[in-house]
């Protein structure tokens, strides 16, 4: 990935609506622009289309014209190339383990502090 391409990817990702568009496309690959717009209450179709153009310019979105529709897919390849650039095989392994631990802990039920509860009774 050359510096210009990488700049385009980072610029595209430096926007919350654009990141949300990628989330939508990851969840519903091949959906059209109208469907993506449904996920946004705060911005209209034209703005969504502009964001999609930026994402497409960064190769993060692939679009295909089918009849009158424009179908969209998330292309994870540039993100993976950035990941590859700054991770070695070993750090990737441990980073993956830590990330999984973080997700597990964040989704786990909050532990009850038994000591504290017991103390209040006594």
């Amino acid at each position, binding site marked *: 990935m050359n510096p210009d391409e990488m700049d385009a990817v980072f610029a595209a990702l430096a926007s919350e609506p654009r990141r949300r568009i990628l989330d939508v496309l990851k969840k519903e690959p091949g959906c059209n622009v109208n469907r993506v717009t449904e996920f946004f209450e705060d911005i209209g179709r034209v703005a969504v289309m502009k964001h999609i153009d930026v994402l497409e310019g960064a190769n993060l979105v692939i679009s295909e014209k089918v009849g009158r529709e424009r179908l969209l*897919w998330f292309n994870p*390849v540039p993100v*993976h*190339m950035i990941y*590859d650039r700054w991770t070695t*095989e070993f750090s990737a392994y441990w980073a993956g383990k830590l990330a999984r631990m973080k997700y597990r802990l964040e989704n786990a039920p909050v532990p009850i502090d038994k000591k504290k509860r017991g103390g209040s009774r006594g």
Partner: protein
Amino acid sequence: MAEPPKAVFKIVINGTMEAVFRELTKTDSPQGAVFNSMLTLDEPGLIPGRKMQMRTVSGRHAVVIGEVMEVEAPRRFAHTHRFTQFTDPSCKVVYDLKQVPGGVEVTLTVENMPAGTKTEVEMNKGGMFILNNLKAIVETGKPSFGCRLMYVMFHWLEFVLPASTKSENWPIGGKK
């Protein structure tokens, strides 16, 4: 009825179309971009209708079976694709190559993925892996160090592959 899921991946590779196409279609050495598999045909020559398999380097296991669907060198290669270890139906894999400023744009499309199956999961992960490695091979002559390490592990751990994937169970051109 909803269309079967489709996945699309795209990358620009600084190389020639011929070099990229050869990496995807060669049968005389392992395909470093495609999980180091040996593309094996029922008869020599990449021609639509030929049965194909992606075997391990030793040839003992056939991991993927399929049929060549389209060959338009150096622009397009398409084949059906079915993992032998799953019972999922086949999907279609298409590589489209296009000359663009800065190199060759490669689009990998997986069509008719059986929804909610292991095949769908594997194809979504695999597309990204294939294109990244294809780029590394064409631009530097070899896959990344991590990928090479993984291929060594594949070779050492070949014995853990399910018995159902053994090549003897999948005679090329056979009905199974």
